[in-house]
């Protein structure tokens, strides 16, 4: 059964066709990868799911309820947590307070929100840095903070927008371990956009490839990397597999 169903959505920005007739199915409990070259429409698809803007046509179902056209905060309340490709920490707040903002969605009392946030920070290896201002964190830590904040809203589906970009291979492996653990222990479904093939191959059970706003391939990682259309448009140019 699908947790998230994107049914032939399209989005145009003036003359630019960002996404055209794209569909994807993310099953319950899965880690699903969305890949494609720069400008393929990955982040646009993401933003339509997250409620940043509504699709021009098509529909998006989450747990079989339509969510296209909902505002970002309503999508989050429905159970979808997201990170931003360009990290957006609340720079003036401490690391812990950043995560507490997310935790308040399900926990009305500050004490309960704090306890939940501390647990999440420990899990992401930020426990020792929780009193620091978010502005003092390094990029890898900021990426972790993005994830921690999204997790604090207790999502059923976690949308990760290039959280591995800019991380060193060892840092990347740590993140991969965290997501595997989240997926296995909590049953959190994950949809990730990723440029770093190492991460996608290691995590995703299914992959969907976008090119010029259209889905050109779907399948397991092994199937996708052998697909001629994918090789031509994407892996043909970048051979870091």
């Amino acid at each position, binding site marked *: 059964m699908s947790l998230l169903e994107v049914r032939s959505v399209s989005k145009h920005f003036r003359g630019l066709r960002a996404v055209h007739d794209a569909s994807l199915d993310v099953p319950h409990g899965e880690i699903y990868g969305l890949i494609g070259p720069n400008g393929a429409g990955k982040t646009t698809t993401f933003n339509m799911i997250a409620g940043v803007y509504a699709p021009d046509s098509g529909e998006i179902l989450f747990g079989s309820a339509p969510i296209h056209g909902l*505002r970002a905060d309503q999508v989050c309340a429905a159970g979808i947590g997201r990170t931003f490709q360009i990290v957006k*920490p609340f720079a003036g*707040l401490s690391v812990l307070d950043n995560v507490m903002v997310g935790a*308040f969605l399900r926990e009305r009392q500050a004490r309960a929100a704090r306890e939940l946030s501390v647990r999440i920070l420990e899990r992401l290896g930020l426990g020792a840095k929780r009193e620091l201002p978010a502005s003092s964190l390094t990029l890898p830590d900021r990426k972790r903070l993005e994830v921690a904040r*999204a997790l*604090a*809203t207790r999502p059923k589906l976690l949308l990760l927008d290039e959280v591995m970009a800019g991380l060193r291979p060892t840092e990347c492996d740590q993140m991969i371990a965290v997501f595997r653990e989240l997926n296995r222990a909590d049953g959190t479904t994950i949809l990730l956009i990723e440029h770093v093939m190492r991460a996608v191959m290691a995590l995703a059970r299914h992959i969907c490839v976008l090119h010029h706003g259209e889905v050109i391939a779907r399948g397991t990682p092994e199937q996708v990397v052998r697909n001629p259309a994918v090789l031509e448009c994407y892996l043909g140019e970048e051979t870091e597999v």
Partner: protein
Amino acid sequence: MNRNRALTPIYLLTGLAAILVALPFFVGNYALSVATLILYFAYTGQAWNVMMGFAGQLSLGHALYVGVGAYAAGALFFYYGIGPWAGLWLAIALCVALGLVIGFLAFRFGISGVYFALLTIAFAEFTRIGFDHFGWTGGPGGMFLRVAQRDTWDLANFRGPPLMYYYAMLFLTAGAFALCAWLLRSRAGYYWQAIREDEEAARALGINAFRWKLLAVAISAAMTAVAGVFFAFYYNNLFPEQIFHISRSIEIILGPVIGGVGTLFGPLLGAAVLTLLSDGISDALNALGLDIPGVKQVFYGLVLLCVVMFLPHGIWPPIARRLRL
């Protein structure tokens, strides 16, 4: 170590409260009126800080709420003899309604930043012009509340000696401080700060930014309305040109800006520093025999300039760091 750190603000507040409660027993009426003025600006600054300091919404028209609050309670008293305790509710209701209208217009149609500030100025300005042409409240000639004898405490009508006004303002300031401290530690405070820091990220965490910003405006307007009621019964005369003027709005924000926007102690410290400075400069200039018109304003401006240049986040944050708060 951690325990001590958590207790420092409590010691500080207890000490400050004790000094302020005891103050009237040691100083004369003049000093008491200065102290009342400081508390008045500390209170209004705290109210403004809820909107700007916490939620990041810059209002340059807070005189609107002071004026509407003052005129609402003042007119009820002037025409119907209804005391300020009832007038207070009308003042709050009107100001909250006005704030919600402004907030709705701005937040619904995506007016933010300086454009939002301009909208708040516009509302204060056309309310001023409106009152200038509104005969019922006296128009430009003003409205004058009956001044009763000043030696007995008439709490029902809020008439009494300067001491009564001082304690009333002290009570309000303490209440505003407690309210803000509580708000800042609650869900509302966290949500406001998230919106202030990055509204898009805040929305992505399930925050209905529109609703929470309106709440900040409503609370700020309600608090400022109470200051307006105090103003009416303390000064007993109301002129649109004075009460709604943009310089009144600026006066309200100077305290928290100098003290530290978004902090709890900033508005208190800023109000004290600015009011004492203003008086101190007058006294110093008189003592030096420098009685040139405008010199006081020049010195005042210079000091503000220095604070803004050397302490861009206000006076309080470096003190807080020194005290390890």
